[in-house]
């Protein structure tokens, strides 16, 4: 190739080079392609002096160093871990990841449902802190979740806000040998809410519509459904861990049609995060909400009342119920569908009782 190069003076290239040769040296350097790439865009406006800028750049490193120093000192002083650096790192990582994601600009792709995996994973470090340290979730039976292929996860629903969905998603992503994203189905009510609709869609959730469920399952995704819906989250504290009606068994019909196994999940601990002692129905009606909860902290403490209580959680993934052995036509057999829905419901209810027994106390 090298021997050919000098023999091939392309006409437009030579014209360009003559143009450059006529230009003065400084001009040539400025115009040459290499210089253009290396050169930073000219700064506009006010710039801080150089030492201040250097300090600004290094501030996070100094802060981390100081924190590490403090952590060691405190450990020596008290003999135990007061500031856990790995937890702090989780948050630092989150902040850096967010900055990195902001730099993508428009150069990212979402799937047809509006799911942005990279963005979702950036939140997992924060949810992981909740998972490990705040609610100290103990997950069992994670091996029942398939590493590939479709499955319909069915769980009980509790607590006023759907933190249980978040924790199931975190459990599968953090604990499974081959991490997978769980796509939860959400009530249409939340899809109409500002901020929430946007956040839910971008983190992979979609509407609880049979058509959406079918499409997700056909793409071999893990789909999480709460058949109790808002009846589950909005039940009073005295009714905790008592399953509500499982819809009309529509989730079973969808699973049979899509040929997906059903994996029941029992979640314990979610009911105590916001103990709902009363429901102001007229106020809920006014705001267009399914319920307006009164808890010992909400609404008395304002936004602080929205902080969930640190109950002890257990999540159990049960053995799959293989509804895919039935032909797709069986989905129209209401007898079979209701029987299977009851089987799923009983599995979850028994799992809840088992896990409640295994839990030593509500907060320990």
């Amino acid at each position: 190739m090298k021997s050919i190069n000098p023999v091939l003076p392309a006409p437009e290239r030579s014209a360009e080079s003559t143009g450059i040769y006529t230009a003065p040296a400084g001009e040539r350097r400025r115009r040459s392609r290499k210089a253009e790439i290396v050169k930073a865009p000219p700064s506009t406006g006010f710039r801080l002096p150089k030492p201040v800028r250097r300090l600004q750049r290094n501030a996070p490193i100094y802060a981390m160093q100081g924190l590490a120093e403090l952590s060691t000192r405190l450990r020596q002083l008290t003999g135990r871990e007061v500031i856990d650096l790995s937890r702090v790192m989780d948050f630092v990582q989150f902040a850096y990841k967010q900055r990195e994601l902001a730099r993508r600009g428009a150069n990212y792709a979402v799937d047809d449902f509006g799911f942005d995996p990279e963005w979702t994973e950036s939140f997992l470090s924060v949810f992981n802190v909740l998972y490990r340290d705040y609610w100290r979730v103990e997950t069992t039976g994670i091996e029942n979740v398939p590493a590939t292929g479709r499955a319909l996860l069915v769980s009980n629903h509790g607590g006023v806000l759907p933190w249980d969905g978040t924790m199931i998603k975190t459990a599968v992503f953090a604990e499974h040998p081959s991490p997978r994203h769980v796509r939860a189905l959400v009530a249409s009510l939340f899809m109409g809410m500002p901020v929430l609709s946007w956040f839910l869609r971008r983190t992979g959730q979609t509407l609880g519509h049979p058509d959406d469920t079918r499409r997700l399952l056909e793409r071999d995704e893990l789909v999480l459904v709460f058949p109790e819906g808002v009846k589950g989250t909005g039940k009073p504290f005295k009714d905790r861990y008592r399953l509500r009606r499982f819809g009309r068994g529509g989730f079973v019909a969808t699973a049979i049609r899509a040929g997906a196994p059903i994996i029941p999940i029992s979640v314990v601990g979610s009911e105590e995060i916001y103990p709902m002692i009363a429901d102001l129905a007229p106020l809920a009606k006014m705001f267009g909400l399914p319920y307006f909860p009164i808890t010992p902290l909400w609404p008395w403490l304002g936004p602080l009342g929205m902080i969930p209580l640190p109950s002890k959680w257990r999540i159990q993934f049960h053995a799959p119920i293989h509804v895919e052995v039935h032909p797709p036509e069986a989905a129209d057999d209401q007898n079979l569908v209701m029987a299977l829905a009851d089987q799923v419901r009983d599995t979850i209810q028994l799992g809840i009782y088992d896990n409640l027994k295994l839990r030593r106390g509500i907060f320990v």
Partner: protein
Amino acid sequence: MSIHAPRRVLITGVSNPLAAEVARRIAPQVPYLFGCDVADPVSAIEEMDFVHADTRHAVIGKLVRQLRIDTVVHMAVTVDSAKEDRADHETNVIGTMNMLVGCSGPTSPVRRLVVKSSQAVYGAGPGDPSFFSEDMAGPERQGSFVTRDLLEMEQLVNEFAIRNPDCQVTLLRLGFRVTSDTTLARYLSLALVPTFAGFDPRLQLLHEDDAVEAIVRSAMGAQAGAFNVAAGGVVLLSQAIAIMGGRAAPILPPYGQWLARLGLRAMTGIDLPGHVAGVLAYGSVVDCSKLADVFGWTPVYSTRGVMDALARGKNEELVEAPSPPQEYELQVYLQRRRRAERDGHRASAR
């Protein structure tokens, strides 16, 4: 169900740029091409006979029978309209009804009918499924007046299809297009784009070239039924704004869309149609698998590609430049002369 090659084609609403491009593409493939519209076309098409005819009057029926039209491509349908205007209802519903009446009956020569509709027929709301398939449009979907009008129009077309089994009817629900003259494109091209606070919906678009291709294929082919036509994939609204080099300003109130539309008009002068406002809050994405199955073709541009093309300014107008009236007159005169010459030659050869 005879698969016939179209011979005498009538295109209604031919003066809008999309229909003009369709005419240009169909012209070399058929022996006789007629176009009608109320407005003058921006530039004359050599092989097309242009007729000043309003679809809102019964003349269209006479035209069809007199010219023995066998294929009608109905494109006199207004979608991108913000005001609840009597004229749009007249064009979309009454115009289509007149056209269908003209094409129906046992003596009708029409064997193929292609009707342009829009994705707007599905409306957009928080409780809607993530993808609309063709069977999801129905009277239970309340929406803006454009949605209602399109639904009524489609209903008329469906009734026509049932009453005239000899005629193959294709209904194309085209996705949202972003040429320089659509509201959506002007909205996305703003430097500071006001968006609904707390919403970042998925957008699905359709490139003008793909829209033309779909209409030409259905006019020349033999596929009956309703089809969604839209580009593959989605972009988020914030992403689309970033691609266009603008910045999103989440300042429109999420509740009470009419208020947001009023505010947007006051701020930017853009009159956002009601159904587009719905799309910008909740998103509207269609499933094009039926198109892929039956036509064996899918739009070439992805939604991302459409956005990139718009950003590059490559999504140029289909018709070269709107020519002044004299230019049009001149073209028509020259065309007439050429035809006269050609026919003269033919007559002398005979």
